[in-house]
């Protein structure tokens, strides 16, 4: 029973995390898709945690340790590089003062109405 619950608990986490991911990420606009991608590069840097856990496995020989050092390095590249480059990129989006507010919506009537209808 307890053993089965390890798998089922993890599966529940897996499925729910997937849904949360879909909901949260669908709200991210096209404009920010490149920072999103570099951001997710940083997030899958969580493999660093995987490498750390694996370093706690019993009976690691020299080769295993060497492989894990590479995995730790790879994970660190992801985490550090991913967050830094995303930060750099997002700063470019932020730095601008917003000029005039949106104006196009009212002017065109015909095709605009169906467009607006779809949105509201």
């Amino acid at each position, binding site marked *: 029973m307890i053993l089965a619950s390890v798998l089922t608990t993890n599966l529940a986490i897996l499925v729910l995390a997937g849904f*949360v991911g879909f909901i*949260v990420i669908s709200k991210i606009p*096209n404009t920010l898709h490149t920072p999103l991608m570099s951001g997710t590069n940083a*997030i899958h840097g969580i493999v660093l945690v995987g490498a*750390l856990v694996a370093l706690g496995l019993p009976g690691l020989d020299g080769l295993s340790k060497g492989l894990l050092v590479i995995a730790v390095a790879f994970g660190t590249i992801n985490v550090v590089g991913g967050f*830094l480059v995303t930060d750099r990129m997002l700063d*470019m989006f932020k730095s601008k003062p917003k000029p005039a507010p949106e104006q196009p919506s009212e002017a065109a009537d015909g*095709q605009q109405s169906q*467009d607006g209808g779809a949105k509201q």
Partner: protein
Amino acid sequence: MTQLPLATIFLQAESFIYVLYIIAFALMIQGLRGLAGPKTAVLGNRTAGVGMAIAIIATLLQQGEGNWALIALGIVLGAAVGVPAARQVKMTAMPQMVALFNGVGGGAVALIAWVEFRSYGSTYGSHTVEGLSTKGVFLERIVEHNAAPSTYIAIFSVLAAIVGSISFWGSNIAFGKLQEILPGRPISLGPAQQIVNLVLLILALAAGVDLIAGAHSELLFIAMLVLAALLGNFVVLPIGGADMPVVIALLNAFTGVSAAATGMALNNPALIVFGMLVGASGTILTNLMAKAMNRSIPAIIAGGFGGGGAVAGAEGAGEHAGTVRSTSAADAAIQLAYANRVVVVPGYGMAVAQAQHAVKELASELEKRGVEVLYAIHPVAGRMPGHMNVLLAEADVPYDQLKEMDDINPEFQRTDVSLVIGANDVTNPAAKNTPSSPIYGMPILEVSDSQSVIVIKRSMNPGFAGIENELYYDPKTAMLFGDAKGAVGEIVSELSEL
């Protein structure tokens, strides 16, 4: 154990680490929510970074006696590579960077799976009918004193190895293509390619099943990694440059899913949650990109768009007896200066020529004269999702001037001049008008609705899809031949003399 100070026992307690993980999840998800808008995005990214740091620290606390020297070595190596790369990479090179980072993540997953196999692969397939492992208790520190059934661990570990290896090699090829180390055009074995890929996939899976069933052979495990590696190479090599946005997004999803599989194998919720977040993101982006190209994901993976499309494109080319009108920078400058509204349509050509700053300069010059300047961004313009937005943001273009396809398309009718800079297929009216065209059905930026069109292009060569662009033969269209940066610069200097 009894000699350990109380604080150490507390810090290493499973539930304490789980609490830290939960805090990390909340911060990570909150951080991603911040990415919903440019104003909240910087804070969002930093929040996510804190979440990541907490997850890592929690895991380090769990290390106990640990291999501290090895951990430090890995982290120092990784930081030595990652920090300068992140600081120095040019915005035009972001697609390569993301491809490389994807690959690195997938590579780490494959290596971890390999070590798992080396460490307790001997227990694979040794479960009893009750689903209990008859052999070693591993990961007892995490799973407490319950020996987990080895079968599902073996399944996820093998899955992680295959997907991680595909992702690592596929991403490296994508990097090579984007960095132009490898030719961008499709490279393939022709029609046999798909069969070869299928055979590779079946062999890799067969090796995996054999391992799960208890083939305690490290050689077989390595063979499985190699088969998946070949598959990764063969899948990405035939994909042309214009399909890169889909490929990068797909590889991103692969890396995320493989990280989640590693989490299942290592019984680590942080890996599961973060991996799935990335998997979801990659999947959403892949779907968006494929939709924006009106192509199915299997068709893209089957590959060879440039190769396959060229035949159909050649037929279409014959129909065009029309003439192409070319213009000069001086004429273009006059046309733009007296417009009320100009819509700039950037494409990969702008990125290659690094013309984004020149474009911004042109826009400022026009705005000084009272011209309204907007930018029309096609979802697949460039080599990765959102590529154009980042380049223009780098050049200080306000993001509210960047219009998505559905918002700008109704506006073209009220646009005096559309200035197409290094974009091709995303403006091709054949996608709407010519059912025989390979890109028929792909949503396009309807620049031909505007009063006039100026296309800056190096030559009449067709785009990556190898399809002739009807737009260039439209009487409204004038071609300004030249490198995007040079041509835009000339227009700017002509403008200042007006």
